[in-house]
């Protein structure tokens, strides 16, 4: 049998680290089973985790040919797909029929397998939880080469460890997920202005009923203005909310040309001053535009998707994301200290996002009740020095780290952050997963 094998340099979305890996593109389950028997591999979806979660130098299984929609039950909104199907395809197919994913991250170029593995959250986590809440069942290939169907009632252990398990419990091949019925493809957005961290938190806490809430935070502000932000609330618009022009095409998908960043920007481009300037301009315009408006779904959920390959603005060295979450009571202090530490450094975060999480029941998923902040920095020595300091602050306030964003953390730090990690390691040991399913990240963190 001809193997679709390709040795190439691959990375996550951050473009750091880049690793030379053997990439296989299986076309059917039989071919995956052959690979699994050879051990030491990881599944890869569309490569949108930021760091090295979906890279295994020995063997990376690219799931791009597992991209079939298998069935859809339109009385309950249950969709069965192969794990390599993109969220974009799901939206394109089902939005015009009045359905939308319950939970979506900030990009639609992600696969269902990746959504499960990272148990992603969206702007509605405070109210509806993470992606894992909307999985009916999935099928996964374990280290013995068996196809196991898992759900809340069937093979529950494997089900729970796989959601948020970063692909380290097997290869997800198929999943049934629940979609949300919607009336229109529009979002009623309300923008609230917060001058500082107290106001930001107050607004989040006062709007726990909003379906969607997220804050863009100006991380370059300090002192009295630390935590300055624009908080964007959102609701799915009903037919009555639309103006005449849009009612006719209330579930329309507009065909728009995406822009593409054609080349890598020079590494010095995103410097501290430019980031400061950009953030001030953004705040100024955000503050002064209309407070309530109807926003097209694509613009609301995926503003960055419109600029293809936007990661190139960070230059060839790439960028790293930093995302942690603090328990509710320690959130404000933790975030203030993070922002102060960034201000003391020579680097800045171009795009910083703050989000309130709700309760979360899970074995190994990232979210917990409290506040999460996501920051991004161009790769540099100064950035790595800063991130180590941010790690210490996160630990100090009992926070934890999001593996889908991580590219560089030290194992000691990670292991200290969460007592569930040891349980995850034990579970992998008991099932021999640790030798079969490994990523660069899991080796680095010794999971």
């Amino acid at each position: 049998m001809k193997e679709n094998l390709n040795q190439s340099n691959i990375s996550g979305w951050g473009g750091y680290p880049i690793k030379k890996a053997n990439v296989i593109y299986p076309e059917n389950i039989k071919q995956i089973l052959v690979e699994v028997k050879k051990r030491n591999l990881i599944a890869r979806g569309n490569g949108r985790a930021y760091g090295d979660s979906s890279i295994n130098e020995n063997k990376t299984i690219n799931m791009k040919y597992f991209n079939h929609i298998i069935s859809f039950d339109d009385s309950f909104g249950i969709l069965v797909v192969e794990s390599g199907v993109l969220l974009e395809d799901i939206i394109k197919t089902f939005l015009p029929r009045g359905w939308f994913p319950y939970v979506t991250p900030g990009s639609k170029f992600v696969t269902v397998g990746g959504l499960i593995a990272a148990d992603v959250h969206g702007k509605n986590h405070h109210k509806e939880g993470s992606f894992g809440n909307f999985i009916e069942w999935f099928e996964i290939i374990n280290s013995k080469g068996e196809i196991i169907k898992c759900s809340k009632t069937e093979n529950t252990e494997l089900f729970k460890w796989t959601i948020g398990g970063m692909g380290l419990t097997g290869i997800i091949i198929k999943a049934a997920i629940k979609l949300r019925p919607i009336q229109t493809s529009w979002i009623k957005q309300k923008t609230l202005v917060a001058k500082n961290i107290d106001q930001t938190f107050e607004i989040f806490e006062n709007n726990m009923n909003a379906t969607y809430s997220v804050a863009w935070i100006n991380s370059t502000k300090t002192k009295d203005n630390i935590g300055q932000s624009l908080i964007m609330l959102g609701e799915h618009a009903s037919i009555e909310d639309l103006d005449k022009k849009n009612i006719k095409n209330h579930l329309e998908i507009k065909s728009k040309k995406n822009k593409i960043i054609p080349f890598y920007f020079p590494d010095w481009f995103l410097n501290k001053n430019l980031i400061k300037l950009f953030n001030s301009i953004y705040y100024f315009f955000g503050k002064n535009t209309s407070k309530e408006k109807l926003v097209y779904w694509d613009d609301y959920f995926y503003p960055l998707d419109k600029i293809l390959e936007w990661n190139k603005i960070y230059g060839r060295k790439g960028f790293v994301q930093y995302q942690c979450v603090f328990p509710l009571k320690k959130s404000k202090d933790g975030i203030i200290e993070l922002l102060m530490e960034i201000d003391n450094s020579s680097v800045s975060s171009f795009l910083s996002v703050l989000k309130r999480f709700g309760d979360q029941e899970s074995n190994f998923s990232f979210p917990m009740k409290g506040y999460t902040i996501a920051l991004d920095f161009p790769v540099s020595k100064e950035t790595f020095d800063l991130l180590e300091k941010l790690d210490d602050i996160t630990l100090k306030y009992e926070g934890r780290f999001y593996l889908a964003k991580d590219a560089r953390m030290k194992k000691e730090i990670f292991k200290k952050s969460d007592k569930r990690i040891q349980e995850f390691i034990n579970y992998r040991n008991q099932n021999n997963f640790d030798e079969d399913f490994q990523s660069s990240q899991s080796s680095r963190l010794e999971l």
Partner: protein
Amino acid sequence: MKNKNVLILGALSDIAKSIAQKYGENGYNLHLAARKIDDLELHSTDLKIRYNVNVHIYEFDLLKTETHKDFIKNLKEIPSILICAIGLLGQQKDGENDLELRTKVIRTNYEGPLNIISDFANIYENQGYGTIVGISSVAGDRGKASNYIYGSAKAGFTVFLSGLRNRLAKKNVHVLTVLPGTVYTKMTLGMKLPKLLTSSPDKVANDIYDAVNKKKDIIYTMKIWRLIMFIIRCIPERIFKNKSF
């Protein structure tokens, strides 16, 4: 009269899959033919759900030319568009020493397509309409050391299409020759391809869809390949023979 039906031969190739999506998106009923009928099942379910169109699947072996007549007889209807997306690159080096492989390359890229398309040409000629799309390759524009077995078969296919177009032009039958440059597919996996000159299956599918509607004769995809191949064809043989590509 014309139906909104398209038949895709070699329906499991990356380019063929993109073509099926493009036609499905535009409301065409799809007739998909490939050797591995089991893999077609999943593909056809997927297309039905995505585009709400009828999808028929057929087992089809291009190299078993004796079965082609029955294959046509068993079609649910005669689609007005035929797209032949079958090709086999093969390892040039192996082909130089291996009779079986080089025969397979020649038959897959030339003899097989010639046979099945000839049958459709007669049907279309009789009914007075139809579109034939043959996916050939820029490799057929000039022979080079790294892939001339494949290239020569594609050259034959290109000439076949051109002759067919000449025969059928007056009969209201449209023949489109598609000459893709490098494309990111299973066929080119592991090769170092020039990023700026390499297309995606979706882009090729879009170009084919547009070219069919505009009744074009020959398209290069990406367009820049027309210029590249023009220049390559202009190089005198005495210089060309010493260059490596």
